[in-house]
């Protein structure tokens, strides 16, 4: 930890003073993310033009494909749900100064184990079966991430390396589960996937509103409450602000680091569970590869504020939901979405570029300082 982060010791919300000040500080906080998104879209448009496609028809199709009708909105909300969970997982860990880059692995084990409970048990009523499947998925994600948290707390092994390695281990493990003990053997299936989950474990969808999305919104608000309104949250933010000061103040830093990784993994695991139980109806190997990385973009776009993760996730959700229509109607490869996301991340992570471009003045740019070095 370097000394500059001491000044940003946990304080309540900055925007509790007066309504006028609150709206101004909200504007100030949103300026860089909004400008970053705009810049990302402009550069994306440049790439589309260079490739000889029409920007107007491409972006038009993107928006229509993401928001054009009830089906499009449903698609967007379905895409946004695991993205919000992934963003929350990253944002929550950031609050303790930890970088959970393993959202993908946690999501995979969460999705696989939720599906395992979903198709493996039958005869339970929905009110028991569905929560149980969600819980097991979340717990699997939590346990997976807690490996990194416990190793960090006991041996100082850097969570970035451990969670990345766990991503690859999780990929292999879930591939094996979906190909061997849990494979769908109906018909002549040879794909690495589980059977469909029982009806009693399916997350309902009401019209254009998937219930899983509501769960993500509840999770976001719960994260905010936990971080800002509880003693535990205060301890988490203290550890994030200055690990050594927190230890001196009597906070068990090891417990906080291990448990924060657990909560972070729980969120990512729930994201995977919602994907299996609410969208695909089963677990398929390699589902949603790359989600851990999208979670990073979303968390930083939201400036690590749990509630702001919702609009950030929705934004990326619209792009992902509309990408297919964009390719169909204007011929632009859907991978342009990944490029735009990378550009947005670049601008959000290096706000000095945006401030220079927009001539903005604001000193408090430092989003966060993560633990330095690999050792203890």
């Amino acid at each position, binding site marked *: 930890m370097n000394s500059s982060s001491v000044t940003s010791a946990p304080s309540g919300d900055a925007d509790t003073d007066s309504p006028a000040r609150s709206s101004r500080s909200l504007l100030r906080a949103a300026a860089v993310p909004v400008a970053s998104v705009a810049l990302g879209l402009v550069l994306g448009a440049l790439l589309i033009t260079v490739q000889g496609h029409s920007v107007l028809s491409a972006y038009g199709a993107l928006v229509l494909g993401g928001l054009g009708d009830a089906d499009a909105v449903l698609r967007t909300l379905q895409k946004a749900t695991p993205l919000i969970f992934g963003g929350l997982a990253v944002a929550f860990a950031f609050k303790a100064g930890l970088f959970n880059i393993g959202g993908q692995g946690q999501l995979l084990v969460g999705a696989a184990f939720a599906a395992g409970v979903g198709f493996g048990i039958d005869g339970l009523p929905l009110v028991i079966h569905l929560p149980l499947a969600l819980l097991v998925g979340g717990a699997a994600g939590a346990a997976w991430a807690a490996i990194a948290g416990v190793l960090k707390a006991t041996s100082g092994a850097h969570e970035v390396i451990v969670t990345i390695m766990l991503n690859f281990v999780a990929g292999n493990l879930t591939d094996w589960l979906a190909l061997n003990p849990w494979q769908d053997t109906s018909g002549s299936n040879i794909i690495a996937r589980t059977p469909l989950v029982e009806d009693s474990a399916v997350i309902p969808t009401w019209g254009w509103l998937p219930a899983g999305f509501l769960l993500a919104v509840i999770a976001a608000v719960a994260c905010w409450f936990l971080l800002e309104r509880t003693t535990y949250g205060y301890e988490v933010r203290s550890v994030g602000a200055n690990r050594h000061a927190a230890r001196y103040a009597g906070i068990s830093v090891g417990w906080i680091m291990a448990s924060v990784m657990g909560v972070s993994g729980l969120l990512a695991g729930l994201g995977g569970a919602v994907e299996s139980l609410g969208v695909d109806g089963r677990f398929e190997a390699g589902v949603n590869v790359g989600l851990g990385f999208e979670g990073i973009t979303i968390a930083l776009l939201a400036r690590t504020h749990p509630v702001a993760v919702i609009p950030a996730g929705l934004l990326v959700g619209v792009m992902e939901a509309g990408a297919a229509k964009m390719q169909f109607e204007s011929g632009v490869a859907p991978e342009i979405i990944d490029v735009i996301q*990378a550009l947005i991340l670049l601008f959000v992570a290096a706000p000095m570029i945006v401030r220079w471009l927009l001539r903005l003045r604001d000193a408090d740019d430092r989003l966060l300082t993560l633990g330095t070095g690999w050792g203890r």
Partner: protein
Amino acid sequence: MTVIETPPGAAARRRWSPARIWTVAGAVTVVACVWFFYAWNGAQTTAVLSGTVRAATLLVLGAMCGMLGERSGIVNIGIEGQFLMSAFAAFTVASVVGSLAAGVVAGVAAGLAMGWLLAAMSIGLRTDQIIAGTVLNIAALGLTSFFYDRGRSLGQLKYQAIELGPLADLPVVGRALFNRPPLTYLALVLVVVLHVMLLRSVWGMRTTAIGEHPGAAATVGVDVIRLRYLNVTLAGGLAGLGGAYLALEAVGTFSRAMSGGRGFLALAVMIFGRRTPLGAYAAALFFGFTTALQNQFQLNDTFDIPAQFVGMLPFVVTIIVVAAAGLFGHMRDPAALGQPYEVR
């Protein structure tokens, strides 16, 4: 800057520290095992050794990229992205121009550009270094996927092995070490050169100084910012060579996300090798061995272990190594690692 007379730690290195005894014991065990297996099954042992060297080359290039940055105080978790971007550049240029050498130049150039980008973000803009590296990874995956042309092929053979005369006929290691394609030899030369440069030259000492105590280095006249920029950019060139090696020598084509996590394994290799090139090469051979063993297992079906569990091996080993290094190691990170340097 005066000439350094005695490198730090030289006295300690002469003594027989426990670490040194362990290293020698480990080396003797490895050599004995290799001999034993060679006597038992020569062809298969040669195959595993070849696979080991093949995997180690990429890992050591990535590890050297990481260590050049870390010794200067800059964490680089973007090696994966640097590999991927330069593999793409190398493959595309080699395919369009029709020359492997042009591909290598393009790969190194792409690596240098990625290195500069990391430097600009983490040194110039003082972005958190872990996030800056993540930006490289995501950008590389997005850009290479977007521009990737599935129909493109190399249009010629990948780099082929060159026999180094009688050396290639040596027992045990001959075929594995001295009958390799050109970039492997180049990487081996770079390992030795960089080792000497880092531990003996004025540049190496200055590099260590700006990673340990940039303020002190600045007071004796080292331009910390400039040297950090230079080192992180050059380090990108090493990863760029790794990317070119991956596309033009190891595989012979490009595919989406083909670096497959080896840029991250390279970081573990670097830590395990104690941030020295020779140490990293030893570590890379060890990690390369787990990969080669995995491939051999999958090929000949003698052991009934599911492919996925064998596939986990390098990653599980990395977790154990990183945790054990923290628990039992007496290794220390450069003191200023991860902290932006601000001129006051």
